């Protein structure tokens, strides 16, 4: 604490370093509150970290951590070249391909939707449609999977029923049972589920753009398209970048609930992604060590992607995430 700081203290808030003793005396109730969340993360998250050592072991449930053999990097080598590597490589490939497609289709949609909602003229209509568009976010994947069956089944699905009754098609389209059709259905359902909810953050960002800008543009005779391109989109650019970085972190991870809800025996070639691999091969098949190695690989790549994307964004002059 310097001499001049006394004045500052008197004027502004006390930003001075307090001793721990003083801090506890004043804020012991706050520290008391913090015990609860800290206990939760230590018991349920941090306590699991030591278990990660199993990636260097041949972990057997019967033997536990102490009795299982240390094998060094063998699990990671096995993932890529071992006898069961075909499964892992398929899961890896599917995860990357489907997540990239998810990103390419699912990422722009909320932006487009937010821009369109912002251009809507009738507040009532906007409110009602927004409420409806958020709804899929609140449905579980079990419900969505079930609705997907009802809509897309080859024989009795609503879409195929409608198309056949109009005579547009002779036979039902195998939306869910042929793997390429399934891939399209899976991706579209993902877009559909996330678009409304995803648009909220962009709408919030658009609210932050000064109305003066739009008025000035109107006076200058800018068309709607020009207003969107030169005002709205630049205005939400920081939000777009932030969300893009966060999405890149999910490039490897996939949602187990979504995958299993849309699963069936005919589409396993595509449906088998890392989350399924970890559940099916690692957990159900009791290949704990190798499953965990795959899991660790997945989260480390995700983390690396976020860090790299953040660096790139900053290098390009954006604010970045971290």
């Amino acid at each position, binding site marked *: 604490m310097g001499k001049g700081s006394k004045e500052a203290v008197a004027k502004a808030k006390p930003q001075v370093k307090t001793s721990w003793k003083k801090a506890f005396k004043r804020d012991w109730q706050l520290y008391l509150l913090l015990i609860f969340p800290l206990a939760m*993360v230590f018991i349920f998250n941090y306590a699991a970290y030591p278990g990660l050592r199993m990636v260097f072991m041949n972990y057997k449930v019967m033997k536990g951590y102490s009795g299982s053999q240390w094998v060094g990097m063998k699990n990671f080598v096995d993932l890529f070249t071992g006898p069961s590597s075909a499964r892992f490589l398929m899961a890896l490939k599917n995860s990357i391909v489907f997540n990239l497609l998810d990103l390419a289709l699912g990422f722009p949609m909320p932006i487009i939707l937010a821009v369109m909602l912002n251009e809507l003229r009738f507040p009532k209509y906007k409110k009602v449609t927004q409420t409806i568009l958020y709804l899929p976010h609140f449905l579980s994947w079990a419900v969505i999977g079930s609705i997907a069956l009802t809509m897309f089944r080859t024989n009795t699905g609503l879409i195929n029923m409608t198309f056949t009754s109009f005579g547009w098609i002779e036979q039902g389209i195998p939306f869910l049972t042929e793997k390429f059709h399934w891939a399209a259905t899976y991706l579209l359902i993902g877009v*559909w589920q996330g678009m409304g909810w995803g648009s909220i953050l962009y*709408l919030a960002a658009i609210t932050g753009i000064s109305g003066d800008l739009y008025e000035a543009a109107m006076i200058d005779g800018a068309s709607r398209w020009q207003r969107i391109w030169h005002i709205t989109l630049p205005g939400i650019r920081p939000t777009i970048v932030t969300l893009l970085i966060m999405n890149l972190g999910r490039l490897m*991870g996939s949602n187990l*609930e979504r995958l299993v809800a849309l699963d069936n025996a005919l589409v396993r070639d595509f449906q088998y992604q890392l989350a399924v691999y970890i559940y099916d091969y690692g957990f159900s098949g009791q290949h704990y060590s190798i499953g965990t190695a795959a899991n660790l690989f997945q*989260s480390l790549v995700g983390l690396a992607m976020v860090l790299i994307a953040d660096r790139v964004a900053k290098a390009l002059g954006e604010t970045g995430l971290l």
Partner: protein
Amino acid sequence: MDTAVFKGGKIMAGKRKEKDNDISAGGSRAISKFHISDIVIILIIGILSLTCLLPFWHVAVKSISSNAAVAAKSVYLWPVDITWDAYRSIIEDGSMTHSMIYSVEVTAIFTLLGMIVCTCAAYPLSRKRLKGRTVITFLLMIPMYFSAGNLPTYLLYSDLHLLNNMWVLILPLIYSAYNMLIMKNFFISNIPDELEESAFLDGATNFQILFKIVLPLSKPILATLTLFYAVGRWNAYGDNMYYIRDNSLKMAQYKLYEMILNAQEAASTALTEATNVTSTPEVLQAASVMFVTVPIIIIYPFVQKYFVKGTMVGAVKG
């Protein structure tokens, strides 16, 4: 599960303006010449909304139609031979009703504890004067970015005797870094330090400030996060897949998932001509979907007005 990993905390939304959300910042309120592009936008938004509504409507209609009508493919967007048999048999069977009651129970406890733990973390961490704030925030954020993975976590819960236990569906997830961030950002941007400071000078304790000043001023965020917690728990079943074996301990969504699993397999095996998989009749499945979704549909309109505002506020970088 890695539910918490998926969203980073700081989403920048620029500077927020205190303004009704209805009024768009766009040119919509400016000059009123109607363009073709207006019609196109109205149409596209309308169609997208229909894609969200119609499937659900179709399922609802199916659930009150007769089995025969559904099998004859005559049910589209209007019920045929209205009957409540499917619902009756769900209720009579008891297993679904049981898991509904159980799910409500789990969700209620989860939401209550979740809100408590969230407030316990968010309020202290929103106070800038708190010594050690950075370190504690860091400790509470790491799990969001890096988890040990499903299998070490599974073994940990096994050691904690939580497997096949109702509490495994509650305790591990009540602290959510994502929700904590939203709440913390709300406190920082909406509760002025001065307000608290003056209460402090009047001799109020931290607890009194929290309960008498901060929480009453935070209703939108409390409503929003209550919804997030409740819906999150109600809808998730991935943890059921890992940790629960007993039928009586499975949540309703997991039951529904098992039901469609059979239907999926039946749909695909019918093509491969193995016919020994029995499918749940479509009407029953539709009724089950309605059954487990109704609680959400009921609370949705009430909290709807809060959550948009709450999410927006929390999302602004604090």
